[in-house]
């Protein structure tokens, strides 16, 4: 079941939460809506679900050519996993999962034996088969999360929507559960959209990432695309650390303190201010350098597992961060306050009038 979002707009009083957003989610895809808080990602998810109505006169929501815009959430066959799970606190885990089946009209409601069979199957799927009698209050956060997922899957949804699914969990559980969910998705192939503000989560879990900011989509792409080829400075800065180098753009080159950086994206523009965006791992550190290299001094060396982070500063004082593989670091035998040369393996130049 594909999802088609066609120029959806949502206003709360005077505040525009979603600005004419269009989006296509293909059959069986797992898509992340990623953005800072207030970017409209949760509102968009709730509009897809039918928990929120778009502004009258704005676009449409379609599930596989079927117009869903005016339909209630109960008629859309979506599975929705709430941020704080919203488990029914007075019902056992089993009854929570069975709720959607029992709520069906009597024509389509499975009999008790069938409900028991299907709920047991789902509990096995989320690995909680022995906790069916527990109340939600007797479960840990990760277990509650999985109950919420089983409950949403019980109604055999055509689309699975998850609002900050791992937001309330601690780091380790979150990472485990993330990988588990990815495997689950690969087995079930249900079209899924989840909201997150955690870029690592989006990049690791999703087939495609939709980066949102201030109610707009900034970029849609595979995790690789949005990370390696950010469409604009916002995406660059939101996804991971980045170094900024200010300079003048002249005939396809950005001059930073007399050093040139290629900027084929902005070729002919005569003499404007520009900024080069360089990821720390794209900063090459060497003992010696030619004309294009920038001389820097090492302020701090931080060991962080497989990579070593170097905090450097240029002779005009601007800080630069570099991430060097451990082997390379050992080879160079770097020490603090030493002077080294840096070049950029990969840089992207944006003209400075672009506002974020």
């Amino acid at each position, binding site marked *: 079941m594909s999802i088609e979002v066609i120029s959806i707009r949502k206003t709360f009083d005077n505040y525009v939460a979603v600005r004419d957003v269009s989006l296509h989610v293909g059959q069986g895809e797992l898509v992340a809506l990623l953005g800072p808080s207030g970017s409209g990602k949760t509102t968009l998810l709730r509009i897809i679900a039918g928990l929120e109505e778009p502004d009258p006169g704005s676009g449409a929501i379609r599930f596989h050519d079927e117009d869903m815009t005016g339909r209630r959430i*109960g008629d859309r066959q979506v599975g929705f996993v709430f941020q704080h799970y*919203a488990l029914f*606190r007075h019902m056992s885990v089993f009854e929570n999962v069975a709720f959607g089946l029992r709520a069906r009209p009597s024509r389509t409601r499975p009999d008790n034996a069938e409900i028991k069979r299907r709920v047991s199957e789902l509990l096995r799927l989320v690995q909680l088969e022995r906790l069916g009698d527990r109340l939600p209050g007797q479960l840990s956060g990760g277990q509650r999360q999985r109950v919420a997922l089983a409950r949403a899957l019980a109604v055999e949804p055509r689309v699975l929507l998850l609002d900050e699914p791992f937001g309330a969990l601690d780091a380790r559980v979150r990472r485990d559960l993330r990988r588990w969910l990815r495997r689950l998705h690969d087995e079930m192939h249900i079209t899924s959209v989840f909201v997150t503000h955690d870029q690592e989560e989006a990049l690791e879990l999703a087939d495609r990432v939709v980066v949102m900011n201030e109610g707009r989509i900034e970029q849609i792409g595979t995790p690789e695309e949005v990370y390696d080829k950010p469409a604009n400075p916002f995406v660059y800065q939101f996804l991971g650390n980045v170094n900024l180098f200010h300079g003048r753009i002249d005939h396809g080159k950005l001059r930073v303190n007399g050093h040139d950086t290629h900027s084929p994206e902005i070729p002919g523009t005569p003499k404007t201010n520009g900024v080069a965006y360089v990821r720390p791992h794209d900063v090459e550190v060497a003992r010696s350098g030619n004309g294009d290299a920038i001389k820097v001094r090492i302020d701090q060396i931080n060991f962080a597992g497989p990579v070593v982070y170097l905090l450097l500063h240029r002779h005009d004082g601007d800080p630069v961060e570099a991430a060097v593989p451990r082997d390379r670091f050992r080879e160079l035998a770097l020490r603090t306050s030493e002077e080294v040369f840096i070049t950029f393996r990969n840089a992207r130049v944006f003209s400075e009038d672009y506002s974020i």
Partner: protein
Amino acid sequence: MNTAASLAIRSQKQLRQGGTTEPAVVRYILIGATFLVLGLFLILPLIIVFHEAFADGVSVYCDALRDDDTLSAIRLTLLTAAIAVPANVIFGIAASWCISKFEFVGKRVLLTLIDLPFAISPIISGLIFVLLFGLQGWMGVWLHRHHIHIIGSVVGVVLATVFVTFPFVARELIPLMEAQGTEEEQAAISLGASGWRCFLKITLPNIKWGLLYGIILCNARAMGEFGAVSVVSGKIRGETETMPLHVETLYNDNQSSAAFAVASLLTLLAVATLIAKSIVEWKTAATTQLVPEAPASLIVSTAPPLHPSGKGGFDI
């Protein structure tokens, strides 16, 4: 038992003691004084009620309760409560539902209106009814012409009681439902439940203890109301007298042991109310404690149990 939990309990105890550094003498004097005042003003009257009721012997007590007017008063009191309590349960649930789950203009006004019966003296409430429905009142002439009698009739007694007991259920439910929010209802709707099913299966079970608490208080007040009912009832013996009114009438007639006999029934109701209230409070505490986070000993490890394939952890 898990040591972390017992440590937590111990440190809580220390904290509590840390705040009260007064010497033991002061503490015992304060506690003793509290009990003395409570005993004098609450327990003693209770004992006296029963003592006076049985002062002329058990047979007089039984006769007083078997009297026609008394039986009629008991019947009217039960009838009044049987109408007022369900009416206010329905109103209370409806009002707290719309106040806690929706945003609308005039919400504050509605909240204030619900509190109105608490804020004004019951006598004034009764007078308002007389002003509205009495012969000289605004609607008096019209009502008289259509042969509808409210003041000095059972209808008036019931109306006044409903008005006075208005806030009990709603006031109990509004904060509870506001705290619970709407996420569970949204989840139920998203799973295809109808509005009615969502109310019966999700909302009602979540508020049941609070609702019961409100009902108990509402019932106690409905049966015990004196002021408003006394103004509108006209105090017709055997017809519009409720138990509290009947106690007063008997007492003024110098039938003191009969008065205390009826009063003893109301006292028993009060005691039963207190016991029921304590049970409900205890139950509520037990259920709400479970909701936010289970005690550490109840939670099994975060990692899921072994998968049938024999693998542990999250591998499937």
